[in-house]
């Protein structure tokens, strides 16, 4: 029996090889299905890891103070890494709040993020992809990001028109990598570039938060330019080691006091938002993977159709095999194995393709997909299953064929 199966396996492989083009078209459905399932899950997993990596990079002891009430379930907007998404929330924090926060007990560093609107011009080039953020000297240590050239805003710079820019701004606005000492105009005021940040790790799906597009100026300058209308949408706070929770609650009570007992703000500890964003990402990934899995089903139907054609074409062969003594079960297993070989080969090609795509995405985009082995194994299993399920219909048809009729057909 073992040798029989091997013989069928060989026959199956050779029949797949003998009709290469047709086999390829058959497998295409499975290939696309397997590849898309693996890639979707891999990209989702990659983004998840990137986000948590960024959180980790910024430090888990980071506390974020935001205006208005945050609902835990709004997931994405409470995402610690998705810094600018706080823009969606109405209301803002005042300069007084910034001071209150910085003076709270246990706070080692704090920086407001105040967004200021207006066009940026330099020597005739207008830059509108970026944004201007008012902040304080603690920002680099809070973001765990160093300045590559020049220096960041210092305490002494309060009130002066200096700026530190992200790398994209440097390239797009000034068309050079190190535009130190060059100037641009913003809201009718002239700013001089003081430093250039190292490249920020960008996270896909949160394009807005790309600080490589940002220009940082002293917070009070930002406030004065906008005549105190610029919203401080976030205050980043670093607490003493191991005291994040206590510091967060002390900030909360201090702010509550200054707001007259109202809690129209929220204090989020750095890694708390990650959980809910993970949930949403997982849900999305599963949803898209489910859609991709439908293509596996379609691929299975494709296999069934081609196998039906193949059975019809090889009716004579079936007749011969039956005449020399093949039982129905032996014919059945021959065609089942053939369908399984087809779909499994499709699965393997799909896996290979997704590894290739993974490499290409890593090389050419910011995405860093992570292929998870359980998904690869499941995809292989599913393609095997698809072959068995959809191969059984044509195989049964072949097995039940009357030998005389089969021999007569040419």
């Amino acid at each position, binding site marked *: 029996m073992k*040798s029989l199966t091997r013989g069928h396996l060989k026959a199956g492989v050779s029949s797949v090889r003998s009709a290469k083009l047709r086999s390829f078209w058959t497998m295409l459905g499975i290939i696309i299905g397997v590849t898309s399932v693996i890639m979707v899950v891999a990209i989702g997993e990659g983004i998840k890891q990137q986000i948590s990596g960024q959180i980790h990079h910024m430090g888990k002891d980071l506390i974020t103070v935001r205006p208005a009430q945050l609902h835990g379930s709004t997931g994405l907007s409470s995402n610690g890494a998705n810094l600018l998404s706080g823009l969606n929330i109405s209301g803002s924090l005042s300069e007084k709040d910034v001071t209150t926060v910085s003076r709270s007990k246990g706070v080692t560093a704090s920086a407001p993020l105040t967004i200021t609107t207006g066009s940026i011009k330099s020597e005739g080039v207008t830059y509108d992809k970026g944004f201007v953020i008012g902040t304080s000297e603690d920002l680099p240590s809070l973001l765990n990001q160093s300045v590559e050239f020049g220096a960041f805003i210092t305490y002494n710079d309060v009130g002066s028109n200096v700026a530190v820019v992200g790398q994209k701004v440097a390239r797009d606005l000034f068309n050079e990598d190190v535009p130190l000492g060059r100037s641009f105009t913003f809201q009718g005021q002239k700013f001089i570039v003081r430093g250039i940040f190292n490249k920020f790790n960008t996270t896909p799906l949160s394009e807005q938060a790309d600080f490589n597009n940002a220009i940082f100026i002293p917070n009070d300058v930002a406030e004065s330019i906008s005549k105190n209308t610029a919203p401080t949408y976030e205050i980043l706070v670093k607490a003493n080691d191991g005291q994040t929770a206590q510091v967060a609650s002390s900030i909360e009570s201090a702010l509550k006091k200054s707001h007259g007992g109202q809690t129209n703000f929220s204090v989020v500890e750095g890694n708390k938002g990650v959980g809910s964003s993970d949930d949403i990402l997982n849900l999305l990934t599963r949803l898209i993977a489910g859609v991709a899995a439908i293509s596996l089903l379609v691929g299975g139907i494709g296999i069934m159709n081609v196998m039906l054609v193949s059975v019809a074409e090889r009716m004579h062969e079936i007749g011969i095999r039956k*005449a*020399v*003594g093949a*039982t*129905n*079960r032996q014919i059945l297993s021959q065609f089942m194995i053939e369908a399984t070989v087809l779909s499994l080969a499709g699965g393997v090609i799909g896996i290979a393709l997704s590894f290739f795509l993974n490499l290409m995405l890593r090389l050419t985009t910011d995405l860093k997909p992570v292929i998870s082995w359980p998904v690869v194994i499941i995809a292989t299993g599913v393609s095997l299953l698809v072959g068995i399920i959809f191969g059984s219909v044509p195989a049964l048809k072949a097995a039940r064929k009357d030998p*005389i009729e089969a021999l007569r057909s040419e």
Partner: protein
Amino acid sequence: MALIELKDVSKLYGFGDATTLALDEVNLTIEKGEFVAVMGPSGCGKSTLMNVIGLLDRPSHGTYSLSDKAVARLRPNNAAKIRRDTIGFIFQSFNLLPRLTALENVALPLTYKGLSVQKRLKRASQMLDRVGIQSREYFLPSQLSGGQAQCAAIARALVNNPKLIIADEPTGNLDSESSRLVMELLADIHKMGNTILFVTHNPELTRYATRVVYMHDGSIIHDEKTTIGRVAITARRALYSQPQTNEEDDLAGVSSLMKALPSKTPKRKKRASKVAAKPVKRHKKVIAARSKKS
């Protein structure tokens, strides 16, 4: 002990008005070691008889015992096993699998028996040696001449040491030289003690047979023993007599054989009238339909 025993075997095709009687209560006993030629015009039921004897088809009525075992009502899988172990088929169009080499084709029945690859290829190779085309082992059927292909097909039929070999017009697609080769081979196999049943249109080939059976319209109309090396008497008449025919019979390819039959009134007609007078229950409809027509 007869190898094959058919009793009142009938085979009907189709339903209702379109029913055709391919075999009409055929009785045939073939002993072990016989070399039987079956002759008759196209559509007389020769192939149906071969299929029934070869267990490819089940008779509609009647009993069939092969080596004293009732096989007329076997399940398909059991029939397949008997085909595999005791019957070898040779077809007019060779019926080799085009994608397999000659060797693999010959090994095919052994595959279904579950032999190991080495064993079956070795046996197949020996068998190809026996039919004289071992040098063509790794050729595809498309690369073989007709004679070689039929030799490979014979090797395939022999590889399981079957008790019975059924050949449906084995020389039908071959030139005379290859035909002779193939028939000599079958004669050789017969000498080794195998029972062979073959269908032919060529009266010359009855030379190889020990017995000739003539069929017409689903019945056996004549059955004669003959000596090896001589063309059967009836067949010879068909071959050499100047046929006095009419056009209608000629078109059907019946006339020369019918004229050559020993009795002027073939047996079948007699029997048919007898049946018509006292119809067998199960054939009632068919016969009623027939008598209506006439």
